[in-house]
């Protein structure tokens, strides 16, 4: 197990290194001079040359890459042209908001999609199954930003159940300083009003973000459960008199959960991608809004930083899913690999 963890950690490092180099190269290839963009069209060419020298853009490519990578190793992502602050500081400030949003979304996805998928499988070809099918189809086919706007309009603007934008009501007066996650910090400080308000703000963006994944994972859970239901051990467990509830949740779901969990791991990547739009619609002060602004400004250091962070998210999430699968399914752990 420890060997496995070390090996996975080593792969993780290599993937991130590869990602860093790749994104650096892409950033250098795209046309347009960052210095020119930063200074605006009125700047003289001397000023541009000066800034290029300051940014290190006149150095040969491999020197730039080396400077960049050694900076990266020390946690230095360079300076943002947009905010004139170190990119690292910007990311650290914006990350918790996105992290909280994505985490809440994943919790929402797991707690809705898997039980609904199980329900659809247990009552397959009944009205329950048909209803979940309709829900999942709507979830999958509606683009996140459309859903976001509809939710904002109906649930927030007309009905007033939820706040329209933002992360927390300015009137609450609380700053999350410990972890940056409002729910966690609110709980730590015993401020339940903060937690409640944070959840109210989180709710609509999370649903907009989660909808597609919920639909997809629900269907996959249903299919996996139906496949498992036809296996011999299910019939055997029933014949030995194990109650139906235990057969469904302990015996069937543990085997069937492999496919939906794998998909949830991949879902993480698209969550960050979709968060760009949803954060924009809900004015969520997260890393995705930051990413959008920096891309439009061709603020290369910041863009690279944002891409790296979402890369770390993705790789770590998949590592966790793999570990979870190892716990769920001993065959992942026990398999010795043979090759010729």
């Amino acid at each position, binding site marked *: 197990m420890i*060997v496995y963890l*070390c*090996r996975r950690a080593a792969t993780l490092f290599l993937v991130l290194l590869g990602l860093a180099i790749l994104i650096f190269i892409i950033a250098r290839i795209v046309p347009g001079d960052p210095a020119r963009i930063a200074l605006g069209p009125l700047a003289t060419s001397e000023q541009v040359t000066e800034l290029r020298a300051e940014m290190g853009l006149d150095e040969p490519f491999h020197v730039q890459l080396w400077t960049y990578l050694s900076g990266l190793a020390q946690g230095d992502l360079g300076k943002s042209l947009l905010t004139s602050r170190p990119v690292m500081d910007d990311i650290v400030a914006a990350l918790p908001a996105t992290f909280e949003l994505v985490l809440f979304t994943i919790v929402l996805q797991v707690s809705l999609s898997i039980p609904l998928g199980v329900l659809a499988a247990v009552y397959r070809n009944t009205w329950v199954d048909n209803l979940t099918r309709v829900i999942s189809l709507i979830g999958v086919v509606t683009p996140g930003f459309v859903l976001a706007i509809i939710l904002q309009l109906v649930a927030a603007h007309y009905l007033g159940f939820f706040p329209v934008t933002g992360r927390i009501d300015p009137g609450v007066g609380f700053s999350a300083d410990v972890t940056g996650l409002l729910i966690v910090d609110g709980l730590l400080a015993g401020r339940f009003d903060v937690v409640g308000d944070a959840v109210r703000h989180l709710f609509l963006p999370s649903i907009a973000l989660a909808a597609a994944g919920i639909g997809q994972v629900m269907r996959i859970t249903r299919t996996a459960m139906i496949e498992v239901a036809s*296996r*011999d*051990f299910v*019939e*055997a*467990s*029933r*014949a*030995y*008199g*194990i*109650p139906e509830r*235990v057969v469904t949740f*302990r*015996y069937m779901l*543990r*085997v069937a959960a492999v496919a939906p969990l794998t998909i949830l791991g991949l879902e993480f990547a698209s969550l960050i991608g979709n968060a760009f739009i949803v954060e924009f619609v809900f004015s969520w002060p997260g890393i995705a809004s930051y990413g959008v602004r920096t891309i439009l400004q061709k603020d290369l250091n910041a863009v690279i930083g944002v891409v790296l962070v979402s890369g770390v998210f993705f790789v770590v999430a998949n590592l966790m899913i793999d570990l979870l699968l190892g716990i*769920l*399914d*001993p*065959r992942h752990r*026990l398999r*010795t*690999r*043979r*090759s*010729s």
Partner: protein
Amino acid sequence: MTTLLDINDLCIGFSAYGQHRRVLHNVSMYVDQGERVSLIGQSGSGKTVTMRTIIGTLPMPPGRIEQGSIQYDGQSLLDLNPQARNRLKGTGISIVLQDPMLSFNPVLTIGRQMDDVVRYSDIRLGQSRSKAERQLHLIETLRKVRLEEGKRVLDSYPIMLSGGMRQRVLIAMALLNKPRLLIADEPGTALDVTTQDDILALLNTLVAEEGLSLLLITHNLGVVRKMADRVYVMERGRIVEEGSRDAIFDAPQHPYTRKLMDAVPPLYGEKVRTVTHDSTKPVVEIKGVTKDFETRSGLLNRTTGRFRAVSNVALTVDQGDIFGVAGESGSGKTTLAKLILGLMQPTRGQIMLEGRDVATFAGTRDFRKMIQIVYQNPGSSLNPRRAVGDQLAVPLTFTGEDKHTIPGRVSGLLDLVELPKSYASMYPHELSGGQKQRVAIARALSVNPRILVLDEPTSALDVLVQATVVDLLHRLRREFDLTYIFISHDLSLMRNFCNRVAVMLRGEVVEAGPVTQIFDEPQHAYTRALLSAIPVISDEEDAQKPKVSKEERAEVLATNTALEG
């Protein structure tokens, strides 16, 4: 004797998509206290539906009980309320399913699964036992099935046990709540013949020791002869014959029963068909071939172990031979086939096909035209989403057949395997098992190969279907002067199908020669152990089986109570 289970005039139908079909027709049967009863029938005959109805796991709908009754120990099972019905599950009636791998949940430990069975039956019966008491009970039950290392078994996951051990644990599962009626669905048929032999003996002992009644559901007549006091024969949902074991085996009355008996390949006696063939023109020469697999583990994925699948094998197959490679699972027979087909390279040694080295010859168009394979399970070797005609056309396209002549060739191939031309437009799921295997054979023949590797081509088929496929293979061999390499664990079939046989044990060929020599005068203890374990259908055959002493047997057979991994 008192009657424990009494099924009377049972009719069951299935409804799906607005169609209704009756699958059991007026089935009546009984099992007395302490009696061993067998229900024989081919796949689709209604055996499994009968079993599920007795246990109460038949899904309803789509299943529906149309009439009839099932009495168990004086209670009418079909009239009981669900709670009372559930109370009998595992405690009154219990089952042992066919496949010991599939019958366990792969992700829970054996101990967890066994404990659940006891715990929930305790809850239903209003008893309470502590976890430690329950564990003692589990270990005690495992000892009944001759598994001494109870604690280690309980901590294992199903994949860590050998097939024989899993089967034993499965029997222990069924015995946990001391049922009175044990229903066994094809016990041991998924196992090697020597292991199956042990399991059947164990079941017989347990029936006597525990005072169980046994209802055995099987298609294997040899097993029935070993295991039953009384027999029911089922055909298409109807009981067509019943009687004591001796009556059924000595004087079968119903034509269907007789047909079943005749289709079983005899091991000894005058019914045996000996295939002879003389040729000295070698087509496959296997010269000192060894194949190692490496086990990798650790941080750097270094080779940490070596597993020798095929060890220094030297064999020659002559033109026109039907060469049998016999062996149990893990003996290396499939690896050997893959080496011959050039799908793997040997670690040492050389394989020549008609004088050309497979190492360089494999992968060329000529090679593919020379040798082809028919796999064990036509259900998975055919592409489910392609029509039969398209599947037959694939190899033709790859070997450069003209596009315009392909349809004609396809119907020619269907003709060859005795299928109507119209089947070209059908999909595999529309065909029966035997028809699918015919398509697979036609596909292998499409490029006019000279050598066919047959990997257990009939083991997924019923015995009646097996007989027709074997006849087809004989005919094709004569017509096209083919050479067969036949890989199988079914020695009775081999006796009647092959002219030469090699027996493999743990990667080595322990004995090889003409069929008559191997079967009539087996030299190696392993060959004798294999032959003596085959369930046969007459006393004469039993008497002619070679004898093997306990010590010899123990020496050559991998002990099936050892923990793997």
